[in-house]
C-alpha cells in the first residue's frame, strides 16, 4: 500500500494472528520457576462480623506455604484507594482493606488468603479454614440503604450515603412552572456484570538482590495500576514493574486496582517465591466490579410544539460495598454533564445520591455514566413525542443543537467541539426509509403484529481528557497521554505508548498514524505498550481516549522528529532549513524533488553525529517523547435505529433490523471503527434485552456463573448495518474522536424505544430493562394481547 494512503485504510489488525491462534500472553499464561498459587477465601455472608478464623488445619495440609488473614496482614497493606473524590460533592471514602479484618460487607469479600504449591492444594486449604461469622442484617438496594434504620456498612458513612452531588444550569423551576407539557418517569438502569472473557489475575516475583518486584497483571492502565499498588503496598514506584501484555477484555473492570493484587505483591515479597493468582468465573462475577445500577427519577418540561425546555433528574446510585478507583466519578461527572445529549435544553438540574450497600462494588463499565444519561434523555424524548402526538424523529430534529452553533456550551458546562446531528439522523432515517417503514409498521399492526421502531440520537463526551478540567473535577491525575517515537539508525521505528490497547486495535492504528506521519512502511513500525519499564508514564486505555489522546501524543512526537529531520537534511543537502520540505518519507529541497534524503538516511546521520552529518550543537539521535494534553474533550455522536417484532405468544423480542450511523470524526481505520461499533452495539443490546445482575434478599448473587448471567451470542444479535458521517474534531491534530463506547451508549435506548413503540398502541409507556420475554409476556397478558 502506498505510504500516503495508509491513514484511513482498512488495514487488517496486526494483533489478531497471535490472538486467534492462541499465542497471546494473558495473565494466566505467565509461568515462572517455583511458582506458588494464591487463592482467596471469600465470605458467604453479605454482612457479618468475623468472630474467629481457624486456619491451623489448613496450614498443615500438604503443599500449603502460608495462610494469612486480614489481622495477619495488619498494617502491611493500606486500604484500597479511591482516586476520584469528586470536587464539589460530599464524598465519604470508607476504609476498605484488601482482606477483611473484623467484618465482611458483601458475598465475596476476602477473609483469608492461602498460598500452596498447586492450585488444587490451595483449593483444598480453603475448604479447611474454619470461619465463625456473626451475621448482620444486609442491605442490597440503594433506596433501602439510605432509609433511617437501614443496616449501616461503615460508621464513617452515615445513612450509607457515600456520595451527594448536584449540578445545574438555567432556571429549572421556571421551566417546569411555565411548561405546557411535563413528563415524569422512574427508570431503572440495572446492574450489569462486565464479563471480560479473561478474568482478573496477577503474578508477582520479588528479586531480593535488587529489591525489585515485577508483577504481571491484567489491567487497562499499567502505570496507574503501579501507582495504586505503591499506595497500597508501600513498594516505591521505581522498584515496581507492571507488565500487562495481552488483556482479554476490560470494559472498565480492569481500570481499578483491587485488594487481592496488593496481597499477591505482599506474598511474593514475604515468601520469596513467585505467586500467581487467577480468578475463576464465579470469583470474577462476585469480586470484580459491576456496572451501572441507577434508580432514576426524571422529569421533562416542554411545549406542545415539541420544544424541550427543561430537564430535572434525581438519581440513586448503588456504589456497592466499597468505593472503587473511579466509582464516585461515574454517576456524577461522567453522567450528569452529558444529560442534555444532542439537544439545546437551556434548563437542566441533576442531583445524585450514591449509597454503599452489601453488594459487589460498582465502577466504570463500557460507557460509564454516559449510557445512563443517554438512556434518560432518549427515552424521555420518545415518551414526550408520544404524549404530544409528534413523531420522535421530528422532536429530535426540533431540539438538536444546529450544526452552525458549534462549539456549543451546554447548560451543564460542557463545550461540545463539533457536530452535525441532523446529518446523522437523516442518514439513518434514509437507510430505513423511515416514512415508508412507519407506514409498513402501521399495516403490520393492523394485521395484529406487535412491531415497533426506535431511534436513539446520542452525543458522547470522551477522549478523557484535558488535565486542567479533569483535575478540577477531583480526579487524582491529569488525563494527558505520552508517547516515545524512536527512529532507529536503519530508519525503522518503535513507538512506545502510554495507552494500553486491549482489543481496540491501536497496535494497528498507531502504526498507521506513525507510518502516515513519517512516510514509512507500516511493517517498519512496532508499537509497544503495557510494560512500565519500557513505556513512558501513561494513563492507559478507557473512556474512548486512546486513539484521540494517545494518538495525539504520537502525532506530536512524529512531527518533532520531522522538525529535527529537516534540520539534519538541510545540513546534509547544504540547503537552508526553510527550503527543506518533507513528504512521503523524504526530505527534499523545495522545487527540486530529486535532491532529497530519506528518513533512513537522516536517521543514520543522526546516530553517526559526525560534523558532516548533523549541525554543530545538535544532540545526536532521532527520537522524541511527547505528552499530549488535549485542549478539550471530543464529542462523537450519531443516530441508531432499531426495528423490532414481539412474539405475541412468548413475549420474545426479535430485532428485525439495526442501523447505526456514527460520527467519530476522521477515521484512522474504518474497519476497526466498525468493529468497535459492532461490539458496543452488542453490549448495549445485551443490557436492553437480557443482562442483569440479580441478588436475592440475602445478598447472594444469583447470576454468579455464565449459565445464569445471560450474555447473548451471535445467534440472538441482528446483522448491523453501519455507516458513518465525518465531522472532525476541530481541536485535535488529526481531527479524531473516540469510538470505543458509542455503540454501548446508543443502542440500549434504541432497542427499548422500539419495544415501547411496539406496545404503545396498548398504552404501554415504559418497561424497565432487561426486556426479558417473561416480563413482556406478563404485560401482554395484562393487556389481553396474550393468553
Amino acid at each position, binding site marked *: 500500500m502506498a505510504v500516503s494512503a495508509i491513514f484511513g485504510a482498512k488495514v487488517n489488525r496486526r494483533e489478531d494472528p497471535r490472538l486467534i491462534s492462541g499465542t497471546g500472553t494473558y495473565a494466566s499464561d505467565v509461568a515462572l520457576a517455583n511458582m506458588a498459587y494464591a487463592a482467596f477465601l471469600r465470605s458467604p455472608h453479605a454482612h457479618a462480623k468475623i468472630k474467629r478464623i481457624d486456619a491451623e488445619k489448613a496450614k498443615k495440609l500438604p503443599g500449603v506455604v502460608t495462610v494469612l488473614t486480614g489481622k495477619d496482614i495488619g498494617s502491611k497493606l493500606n486500604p484500597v484507594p479511591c482516586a476520584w473524590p469528586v470536587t464539589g460533592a460530599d464524598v465519604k471514602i470508607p476504609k476498605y482493606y484488601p482482606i477483611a479484618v473484623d467484618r465482611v460487607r458483601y458475598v465475596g469479600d476476602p477473609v483469608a488468603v492461602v498460598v500452596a504449591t498447586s492450585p488444587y492444594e490451595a*483449593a*483444598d486449604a480453603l*475448604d479447611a479454614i474454619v470461619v465463625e461469622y456473626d451475621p448482620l442484617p444486609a442491605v442490597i438496594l440503594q433506596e433501602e440503604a439510605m432509609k433511617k434504620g437501614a443496616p449501616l456498612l461503615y460508621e464513617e458513612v452515615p445513612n450509607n450515603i457515600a456520595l451527594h452531588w448536584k449540578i445545574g444550569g438555567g432556571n429549572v423551576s421556571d421551566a417546569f412552572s411555565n411548561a405546557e407539557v411535563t413528563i415524569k418517569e422512574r427508570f431503572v438502569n440495572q446492574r450489569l456484570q462486565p464479563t471480560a472473557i479473561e478474568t482478573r489475575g496477577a503474578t508477582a516475583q520479588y528479586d531480593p538482590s535488587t529489591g525489585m518486584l515485577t508483577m504481571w497483571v491484567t489491567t487497562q492502565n499499567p502505570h496507574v495500576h503501579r501507582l495504586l499498588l505503591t499506595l497500597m503496598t508501600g513498594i516505591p514506584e521505581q522498584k515496581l514493574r507492571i507488565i500487562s501484555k495481552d488483556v482479554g477484555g476490560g470494559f472498565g473492570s480492569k481500570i481499578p486496582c483491587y485488594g487481592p493484587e496488593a496481597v499477591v505483591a505482599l506474598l511474593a515479597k514475604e515468601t520469596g517465591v513467585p505467586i500467581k493468582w487467577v480468578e475463576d468465573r464465579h470469583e470474577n462475577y462476585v469480586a470484580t466490579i459491576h456496572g451501572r445500577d441507577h434508580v432514576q427519577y426524571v422529569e421533562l418540561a416542554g411545549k406542545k410544539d415539541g420544544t424541550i425546555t427543561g430537564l430535572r433528574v434525581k438519581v440513586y446510585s448503588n456504589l456497592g460495598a466499597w468505593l472503587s478507583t473511579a466509582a464516585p466519578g461515574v454517576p456524577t461527572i461522567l453522567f450528569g454533564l452529558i444529560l442534555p445529549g444532542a439537544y439545546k435544553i437551556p434548563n437542566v438540574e441533576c442531583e445524585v445520591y450514591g449509597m454503599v450497600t452489601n453488594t459487589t462494588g460498582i465502577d466504570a463499565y463500557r460507557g460509564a455514566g454516559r449510557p445512563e444519561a443517554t438512556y434518560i434523555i432518549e427515552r424521555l424524548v420518545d415518551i414526550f413525542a408520544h404524549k404530544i402526538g409528534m413523531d420522535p424523529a421530528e422532536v429530535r430534529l426540533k431540539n438538536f443543537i444546529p450544526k452552525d452553533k458549534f462549539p456549543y456550551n451546554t447548560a451543564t458546562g460542557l463545550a461540545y467541539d463539533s457536530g452535525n446531528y441532523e446529518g446523522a439522523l437523516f442518514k439513518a432515517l434514509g437507510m430505513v426509509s423511515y416514512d415508508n417503514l412507519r407506514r409498513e409498521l402501521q399495516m403490520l399492526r393492523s394485521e395484529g403484529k406487535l412491531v415497533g421502531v426506535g431511534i436513539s440520537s446520542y452525543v458522547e463526551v470522551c477522549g478523557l481528557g484535558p488535565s486542567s478540567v479533569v483535575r478540577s473535577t477531583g480526579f487524582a491525575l491529569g488525563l494527558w497521554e505520552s508517547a516515545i517515537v524512536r527512529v532507529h539508525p536503519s530508519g525503522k521505528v518503535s513507538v512506545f505508548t502510554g495507552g494500553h490497547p486491549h482489543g481496540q486495535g491501536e497496535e494497528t492504528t498507531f502504526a498507521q498514524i506513525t507510518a502516515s506521519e513519517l512516510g514509512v512502511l507500516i511493517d517498519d513500525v512496532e508499537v509497544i505498550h503495557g510494560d512500565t519499564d519500557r513505556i513512558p508514564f501513561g494513563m492507559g486505555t478507557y473512556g474512548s481516549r486512546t486513539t484521540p489522546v494517545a494518538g495525539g501524543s504520537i502525532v506530536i512526537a512524529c512531527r518533532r522528529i520531522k522538525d529535527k529531520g529537516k534540520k539534519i537534511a538541510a545540513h546534509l543537502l547544504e540547503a537552508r532549513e526553510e527550503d527543506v520540505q518533507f513528504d512521503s518519507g523524504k526530505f527534499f529541497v523545495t522545487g527540486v524533488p530529486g535532491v532529497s534524503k530519506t528518513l533512513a538516511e537522516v536517521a543514520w546521520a543522526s546516530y553517526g553525529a559526525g560534523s558532516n552529518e548533523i549541525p554543530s550543537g545538535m544532540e545526536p539521535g532521532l527520537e522524541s517523547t511527547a505528552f499530549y494534553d488535549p485542549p478539550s474533550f471530543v464529542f462523537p455522536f450519531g443516530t441508531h435505529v432499531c426495528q423490532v417484532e414481539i412474539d405475541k405468544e412468548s413475549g420474545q423480542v426479535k430485532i428485525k433490523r439495526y442501523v447505526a450511523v456514527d460520527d467519530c470524526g476522521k477515521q484512522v481505520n474504518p474497519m476497526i471503527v466498525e468493529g468497535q461499533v459492532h461490539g458496543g452495539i452488542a453490549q448495549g443490546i445485551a443490557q436492553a434485552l437480557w443482562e442483569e445482575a440479580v441478588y436475592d434478599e440475602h445478598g447472594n448473587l444469583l*447470576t454468579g456463573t455464565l449459565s445464569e448471567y445471560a450474555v447473548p*451470542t451471535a445467534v440472538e444479535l441482528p446483522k448491523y448495518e453501519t455507516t458513518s458521517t465525518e465531522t472532525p474534531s476541530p481541536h485535535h491534530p488529526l481531527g479524531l474522536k473516540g469510538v470505543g463506547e458509542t455503540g454501548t451508549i446508543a443502542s440500549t435506548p434504541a432497542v427499548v424505544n422500539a419495544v415501547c413503540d411496539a406496545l404503545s398502541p396498548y398504552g404501554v409507556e415504559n418497561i424497565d430493562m432487561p426486556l426479558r420475554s417473561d416480563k413482556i409476556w406478563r404485560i401482554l397478558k395484562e393487556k389481553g394481547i396474550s393468553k
Partner: protein
Amino acid sequence: MYPKEFEYASPTSLGEAVALLKKMGPDAKVLAGGQSLVPLMKFRLASPKYLLDINGISNLEYIKENGKFISVGALTRHHSLERSELVKQKLGLFSETASWIGDPQVRNNGTIGGSLVHSDPAGDWGSAIIASRALLKIQSARRERIVDSDHFFKDTFTSAVAPNEILTEIRVPVPPDGGRSAGAYEKLERKAGDFATVGVGVQLTLSRNRKTFEQAGIGLTSLGPTNLRGKKAEKALVGKNVSLETIEEAGTAVSEEVKPTDDVLRGSAEYKRAMARVFLKRALTRAARKAGASGV
C-alpha cells in the same frame, strides 16, 4: 474451580468397567462426555472418590438400525446425532433435539448417555426419549436389563441407573412408515446454549389418510422435577382429527399437567405453564405438517 482429589480409572471394555464399578461402590462416578460432571466437580458440588472414565471403551459410540429399533450407543456425542443421515431421515426428533443442546463445544464432547443419566430436568434428551418411547439398556457386573423411558427418571438428578450400573444403549423404536410419522423439538431459551426455559419434544404418527393422530408421544423439558411425559396432552390427540382445535386442546391439557417452578432468571411457573402450551402447539403443528397433514 479445582476439584478434590479422586482416583481415576480408564477401563477399555464394558466388562472391566462394571467390574471396577462393583469394586468401587457408591463413591464412584462414571465419566462420559463430562459436560455436567466436570463443572460439578470443579465447583466441588460433586466430589467422587473414584472417577471411571468410559471413553476408552470403543464399542459404546454408534448409531445403527436393528430392525424395529435404531440403537444409539450411550457414548454417542450430541454432534453425531445432530449430523447422522440415518437419524435425520428416521428420527427427526433426535436430530432436532441434538441441535438445541448447549453450544458446539458441548455438542462435540457431551454424550446422550451421560446427559440422560445426569437426569437434569432441564436436559433436552429426556424429552426425546419419552416422546419416542425409547428403551434404555443398562449393564451391571451381574446382569443386563432394559428400562422403558417412563421408568427411567426417578427424581431430579436421579435416574434408574444404580451406582453399580452403566447405561450402554438407547433403543429408539423406528416410527411407522416414514412419510406419516414425524417428530419435532421446540425450545424456549434466553439465548443459544442456555438451559431450556421450557422444551417440548413430540413424536407423531398420523393415520394413513393423514386425517387423525394415530400415535402421539410428548416429552417435556424444565417443566417438573424430571423430564415429564405429557400424558393428558397425548390423550387429547390420539384418535382425534388433525386440526388446530385438537392441537389447541392438547395445549390446554399440557398446561394443566406440567409442574413448573418459579425461576427468578427464566420466568415464573405461570409463564412456563403458558409456554408449555405455546411450544407444544408449535411442535405439534410442525411435526404434523412434516407428516403430511394439511389444515394445521
